[in-house]
């Protein structure tokens, strides 16, 4: 059919963030050992307790086996062939203000469309910019400090707010949690730390932009967000990496803590390099994200748009401990070419009248494989708990796949759990209708898929919803048949 042929013709997919910036770096030797961990910890001038925590994690990791239950296929990962710490060498030793940030780094971020100037396009958003293993700068720190909000790199957090870090680090994702989270606990290098004190509504969006630049480097960042009683914060992360033939590992951990009446809204637009159309190269995105609604009436909301990475393996989850707390998960995952995604969420209901909503939209194109895996667990204590899950999959073409693995465990008879799922192929009729109105195939596909994802995009902060739509269009180019 012509449609098929035309669509196939468009298979050249451009990853426009695939450039490399030539930065002078300070890296530790390749491979992993207690010595490497000691070096990382020393470079960061960490307190003894944190080094001990890392070593405890490392020793535990040595006893663990890499999980292979996920619905994704990839070759063995050589953990001794990864560089665990790579920092670009600042021209000025330890830049204290944004004015001192290496111009080459600023230029790199400008090229990515992220301005580290405190004026301009993203002027309503504070940014922590992380390249490989270190934060290169955080904007609006002063303005945020005026209302008591702490927003800084994790490393700075360790130096300036050790008590808070000590109190909350590992409180949601313990060092022994799972293979990749444990590895992260041993070798994590940087990330962001946000603390919103009691009663404060964070006056701007906070965001972290992760950039992998150096070759053969793994990025192991750790983000911790704490919202005290009745605090509110909206946080966004974005990520890109250069195009390389070799796979790079990205094993991050994100922990969120919401105390009584607090709300955390966490949005991700993930656009790591996905590999080429034959599946060569790309990022292994093996991430542990979890939030704890520790206080009553608290709320944690995850929104993710996953279009990049060779393999995505993540389940942003919520532990609903406080009574009446609310957990939400809104996801769009797109796999094109040889990409594989195994993603979903876990909602653990512990408190009374806790509520969770799961809305997952999976789009598979090319040879992409897309799996939704989700757990809804209602504990005995969670009287009156409710969950609604909706998983929709859309297939574009004949050679892709969509899979759904919902796990439901209910131990309280008063709970209500609903699960809806659908799988559809992009309709020839819909496409033809658009084309008869003069809309070219490529635009029509993008329009129909965007419509399919609209409920999720609506949850993104306004500034990013448009970018997410555009990204989806680019990622889909030439994908369908």
């Amino acid at each position, binding site marked *: 059919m012509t449609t098929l042929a035309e669509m196939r013709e468009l298979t050249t997919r451009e990853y426009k963030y695939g450039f490399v910036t030539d930065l002078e770096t300070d890296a530790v030797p390749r491979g992993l050992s207690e010595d490497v961990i000691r070096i990382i910890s020393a470079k960061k001038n960490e307190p003894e307790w944190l080094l001990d925590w890392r070593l405890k994690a490392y020793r535990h990791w040595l006893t663990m086996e890499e999980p292979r239950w996920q619905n994704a296929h990839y070759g063995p990962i050589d953990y001794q062939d990864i560089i665990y710490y790579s920092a670009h060498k600042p021209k000025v030793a330890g830049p204290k203000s944004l004015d001192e940030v290496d111009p080459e780094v600023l230029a790199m971020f400008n090229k990515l469309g992220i301005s580290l100037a405190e004026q301009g396009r993203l002027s309503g958003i504070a940014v922590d910019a992380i390249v490989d293993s270190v934060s290169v700068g955080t904007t609006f720190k002063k303005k945020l400090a005026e209302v008591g909000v702490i927003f800084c790199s994790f490393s700075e957090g360790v130096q300036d707010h050790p008590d808070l870090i000590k109190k909350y680090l590992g409180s949601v994702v313990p060092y022994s949690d799972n293979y990749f989270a444990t590895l992260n606990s041993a070798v994590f290098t940087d990330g962001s730390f946000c603390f919103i004190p009691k009663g404060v509504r964070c006056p701007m969006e906070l965001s972290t932009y992760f950039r992998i630049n150096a070759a053969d480097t793994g990025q192991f960042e750790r983000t911790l967000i704490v919202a005290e009683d009745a605090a509110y914060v909206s946080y966004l992360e974005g990520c890109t990496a250069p195009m390389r033939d070799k796979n790079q590992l990205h094993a991050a951990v994100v922990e969120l803590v919401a105390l009584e009446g607090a709300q955390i809204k966490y949005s991700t637009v993930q656009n790591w390099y996905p590999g080429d159309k034959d599946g060569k190269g790309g990022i292994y995105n093996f991430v542990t994200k979890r939030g704890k609604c520790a206080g009553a009436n608290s709320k944690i909301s995850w929104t993710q748009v996953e279009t990049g990475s060779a393999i995505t393996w993540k389940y942003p989850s919520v532990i609903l401990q406080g009574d009446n707390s609310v957990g939400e998960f809104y996801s769009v995952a797109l796999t094109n070419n040889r990409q594989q995604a195994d993603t979903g969420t876990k909602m653990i209901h512990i408190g009374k009248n806790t509520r969770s909503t799961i809305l997952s939209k999976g789009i598979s194109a090319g040879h992409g494989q897309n799996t939704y895996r989700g757990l809804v667990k209602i504990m005995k204590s969670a009287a009156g708990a409710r969950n609604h899950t909706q998983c929709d999959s859309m297939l574009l073409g004949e050679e892709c796949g969509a899979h759904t693995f919902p796990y439901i465990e209910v131990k309280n008879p008063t709970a209500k759990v609903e699960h809806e799922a659908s799988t559809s192929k992009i309709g020839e009729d819909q496409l033809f209708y*658009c084309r*008869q109105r003069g809309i070219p195939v490529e635009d029509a596909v993008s329009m129909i898929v965007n*419509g399919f994802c609209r*409920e999720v995009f609506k949850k993104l902060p306004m500034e990013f919803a448009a970018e997410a739509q555009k990204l989806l269009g680019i990622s889909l180019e030439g994908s369908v048949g």
Partner: protein
Amino acid sequence: MLDIKNLHAKVEGQEILRGIDLRVNAGEVHAIMGPNGSGKSTLAQVLAGREAYDVTGEVLYEGRNLLAMSPEERAVAGIFVAFQYPVEIPGVGNLYFLRTALNAVRKQRGLEELDAMDFLVVAKERMKLVEMDQSFMNRSVNEGFSGGEKKRNEIFQMAVLEPKLAILDETDSGLDIDALRVVAAGVNALRSKDRAMLVITHYQRLLDYIVPDRVHVIANGRIVRSGDKDLALELEKHGYADLDQKAVARMSLTPGATA
């Protein structure tokens, strides 16, 4: 404007159109009538560029070889089909969809693209033609629309896109008498000396409201009779069954014709 010669169309090996000849000039309204399964809707689909059909013959549209054009090329060249079963596109706003379509057409015509505000002015004005409620604008394309609302939406789109050749495929089916009157009034308002229309219908009823210049009857994939508007009335009286027999009888008497 449109010149169809010996048009054949097959789907899955089955021949649906068996040699259609038809000429439509600018400013004319032609009605295509015929029983179910006669090939009326197939003709609309083939003219729109539906790829499921294996098509032979010749179709010239403004002197261009229509059959070599993609569906979107035909659309921007001014061909519009009001579908019998308009599809739903969840999550895509009706207005956004239509603006994208209009801008594709405008681009082809060398006109500037309209932004959301300018488009809204055009849309609001054209909505009046089909007495459409503004709330439709913010809903997804055809999603949750009743049959009648979908048909109105098609005519509304036609009013916005201002095609040169409009093909209305059973626009009257599923409409009650009030909706039919509204839709027909919309269509009549769009009649002009530069625009041609092919009105495909099973029933004569629609032609009380949209009075055609010519009426053609399709049976078994061929045009078996052509005439003026009175032909439709005749059909109403005697039905297609009667006509089929007459047509077949006449054709078998025509020298050189094979069944």
